[in-house]
């Protein structure tokens, strides 16, 4: 088999290797975007809403209605083995 010279690195490959040694710039590499929360309208009858408000008022510290509902959903999902 005839001998063949080792292939030379192409000019562009050499350039890319040089370029890639540079640090990234702030904001240059797109950071993973935080997943946007899905919003929807939750319809509550007034009685349930009042009960929820009472529950929130009885808790120590401030917990938003949104957070309480999310926790309730997670508890329910946990109990069914999904969370």
């Amino acid at each position, binding site marked *: 088999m005839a001998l063949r010279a080792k292939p030379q690195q192409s000019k562009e490959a050499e*350039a*890319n290797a040089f*370029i890639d040694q*540079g640090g*990234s*710039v702030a*904001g*240059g590499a797109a950071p993973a975007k935080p997943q946007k929360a899905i919003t929807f309208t939750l319809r509550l009858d007034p009685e349930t809403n009042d009960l929820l408000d009472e529950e929130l008022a009885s808790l120590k510290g401030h917990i938003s209605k949104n957070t309480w509902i999310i926790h309730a959903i997670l508890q329910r999902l946990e109990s069914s083995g999904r969370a």
Partner: protein
Amino acid sequence: MILCLAGTKGGSGRSTMATNFACIAAGQGMRVLMVDADDQETSADFTAVRKQDHPDAPSFTCIKLTGRAVRTEVLDLAPQYDHVIIDTGGRDTASQRAALSVSDVILVPFAPRSFDIWTVNKVADLIEETRNLNPKLKALAFLNRTDPQGQGSENQEAGELLSGVDGIDFLDAPIRFRKAYAHAASQGLAVTELSGQHKNPKAAEEIMTLFRSCFEATMKSSKPE
């Protein structure tokens, strides 16, 4: 000519010089491409203001590029222009390296302050490394934001230090700290284009001296021996 304003120190005045040079060259009838390769996008913002507020002023094309695209796009576009001016950020980034890999000249501003001057060896190392890939690269340094009175010993000491750096030619064309640059930038103009109360002939003369020195130094080095 492909000219890259670069360096490894932030706030040394690269964008100010890049935008002024682009305006001056465009004013001389040259076709100028400005490449904003700095994520702060100062040159692009400047160009937007200029085009909006001074639609009849000498114009140039400005594009924003990052990373390897700085090299590939400039190689593609440069033949359509007399001059390409690349504004890079104050860090050793992929964008800056890509710019250096295709440039004829790197122009590095240094303020006569210790923190700025201390970066010169880093810049010299980067230039030396770049020349393995781009042997034609000419490196020029100048003092920016010097004492307006021109009396400070710091100016002289910084000049002497920069003159002694291997691989970088020092241009004795200092740009003094003047409010005219800020006034001009906010209006999308070069200091040479200021009029009325903000007109500053000294600033205009200084930047023209630097502009000519830069081009003369480049032409000198590109002449065959």
